[in-house]
């Protein structure tokens, strides 16, 4: 018998590599196909109008269309805005929540329409001094029908949209819708009754917590952690959905009436209509 029956060492090494390292490497490459989950941040820090609503909805739709976005944090600092645009965002949020959790974090203000959106989220964080609430509707009532001889119409409310009385009553209906959205969104957590809630007050975060308007006092990072936990994900990437969606910088037209020189603003929205909006009428502001 001779000593040439042993497999050479380089062949053994090659075999190990072929059956272990290669599959492992391939497995590592294959694992990269599994995307890192993303918690998307949507920022709403302006009045709610058709432009800001379009911007937010585009980000919500991006989240809807991209499976790697597993949760959304909506960061609010808004006094609210038009009723119809608020409703548009609210509907899209409700649709998104069927597949992903949405957590709200209130920064400066979530008043009126902004709180309407917050109430439609799975969880709400606020800072101790965030402004929360302002449940209600505002409107500039139309004039009583007049007769203009040089500018005629075919009906008494063609120019005004409705009678003053009807406009007032429609506000009441919208207020009830708003209140119902809050009740449904907050559920048993809501401790304040309509006599308090519908006064239209803005409460600091600490008081809002006692009233059940928010769930917890906390920061954006806590909101991200909560959203991740609700989505059953870990170590997510936190990304601004505006950047991910490649949206251009939003166009923000003046929301309030502005003087021709642009150096002062009246405390009335530029566009007539119904609003879920907080307008602070303090000293120095014009009615």
């Amino acid at each position: 018998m001779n000593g040439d029956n042993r497999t050479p060492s380089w062949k053994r090494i090659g075999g190990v590599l072929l059956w272990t390292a290669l599959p492992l490497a391939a497995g590592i490459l294959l694992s990269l196909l599994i995307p890192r989950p993303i918690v998307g941040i949507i920022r709403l820090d302006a009045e709610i109008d058709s432009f800001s609503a379009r911007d937010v909805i585009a980000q919500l739709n991006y989240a809807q269309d991209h499976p790697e976005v597993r949760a959304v944090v909506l960061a609010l600092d808004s006094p609210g805005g038009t009723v119809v645009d608020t409703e548009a965002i609210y509907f899209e949020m409700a649709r998104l929540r069927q597949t992903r959790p949405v957590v709200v974090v209130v920064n400066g203000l979530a008043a009126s329409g902004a709180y309407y959106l917050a109430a439609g989220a799975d969880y709400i964080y606020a800072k101790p001094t965030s402004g929360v609430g302002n449940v209600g509707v505002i409107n500039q009532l139309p004039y009583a029908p007049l007769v203009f001889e040089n500018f005629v119409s075919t009906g008494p409310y063609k120019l005004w949209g409705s009678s003053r009385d009807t406009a007032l009553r429609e506000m009441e209906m919208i207020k009830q819708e708003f209140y119902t959205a809050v009740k449904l969104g907050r559920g048993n957590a809501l401790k304040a009754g309509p006599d308090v809630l519908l006064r239209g007050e803005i409460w600091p975060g600490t008081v809002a917590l006692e009233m059940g308007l928010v769930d917890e006092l906390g920061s954006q990072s806590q909101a991200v952690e909560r959203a991740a936990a609700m989505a059953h994900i870990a170590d997510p990437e936190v990304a601004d959905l505006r950047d991910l969606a490649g949206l251009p910088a939003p166009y923000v037209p003046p929301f309030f009436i502005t003087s021709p020189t642009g150096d002062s603003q009246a405390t009335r929205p530029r566009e007539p209509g119904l609003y879920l909006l907080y307008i602070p009428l303090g000293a120095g502001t014009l009615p």
Partner: protein
Amino acid sequence: MTRRLLIALGLLLLPVAVRAVWFYRGVYSPASLIATPDYTTFAVPTPPLGATPGLTAESGGEGVVLVDLAHANNFRISELESFTARLTARGIRLETIASSSETPSLANRLKYAQALIVVAPMAPFTPDEVRLVRRFVDHGGRLLVMTDPTRSAIGVDYFAIPSPVLTVTVDVVAANSLLAPFDITFSDDYLYNLSENEGNFRNVFFTQFADGPVTAGLSRVAFYAAHSVATPSGRLLIVGGDHTYSSRTDSSGGLAAAALSADGRVLALGDLTFITAPYDGVADNAQLIANLAEFISSAKAERTHDLADFPFIFSQPVVLVPTEGITMTTDILNQAASLQTALLGAGIRLTPAKAPQADFDLIALGTYTATTSLETYISPFKIGLPDSPITGTLTIPGFGPVSPNGIGLILLSQKPERTTVVLVAQSTKSLANMIGQLASGNLSACVLTGGAEKGSAQTIAVCKAGEPTPIESASPTPPSTSSRSPP
């Protein structure tokens, strides 16, 4: 070989599993129901319309109701149409007071009016005006004051330094200046109800009513932004429920929007809008408006007049009867003409006669040298005439002895069938002076006191009728301090 394949497969899948488990700890399941409002179930609230009491013409309600427009009142008469129509249907004439300085003055108008309506005043009432209205109410007149938070005047001084200044003028200040003597006060607030309301939180339903004519037939009314009103001595007529709050205090409980003074003649309402279309048809608002018309028109039955209300103390044509011994001198005729003019201005005809006549009121003239016919007129007043018109003594009940020298009397007796005024003085000249004072309505030189007869309203005015006659120039009659006993 198989083992090697399995190991290789395992190693291939291991990183995938590790990565998946590292990042994905479970499957998200949303709440069973993403609850959003069912928007199709919401409706625009509509007002509960009520029945409107029929508008029937009623006779016997003639009279004058004054509507104040002299205090920067923030409303239009046309807004009261559903209310004023009911007054005019009863034969009531509405007069507006456009300014405090116009003629006839407020003082003269209140002499013949049966009610005064003040709506949303922005300028305060003067103390004299308040005094006149107080006297008017004391004599049976009705006062209706309506305020409304929506009638505030808001002004902006854009050029104020350092920032624009907002000023708000409310109607309750002026209204309260008028209502103070009647112990009624409006609050500078508005009432609201967030849970049950008429289309807006400021539009409050009221279902609690105190019994009385103003609230008769009411089960629910709606006020559209109303001031609250309080009255410690009067009655709160229309009161809000436990969920009706005041904007001033954000507290609830017993807040009233209507109040009646203790004497039942002054009514304060905190809202004007409920009277205007289309709100006058909501709930029982129309019935309340009808009741307000009744409140105003019923003043006629209670209205009383005294000498200060001349010439409106008369309700029939008047005959002027000089008693025996009275010669119609030039002076008397001149003043009688003035008297006739004054009465004509009030729509009352004055004619001379020898004796009182049925269906006529009466002005009788006499001097202290009484005749039997004069004593017939003055006997109800229990007045003792003097033996001498210069040195004698007048005996007036409740007044004590009075020297007749330079003194005249105006005696007023009001009975259902006739009003009688008797003018008595020491001479025809002083009698003419008395007629002149009566015609001018200026009784500032008179002291008034009540009379003694039961069953009639009596006033005795003791007046300066000219300069007293010097006793040494009097006719030689022995001095006497006696008076003839009253009959």
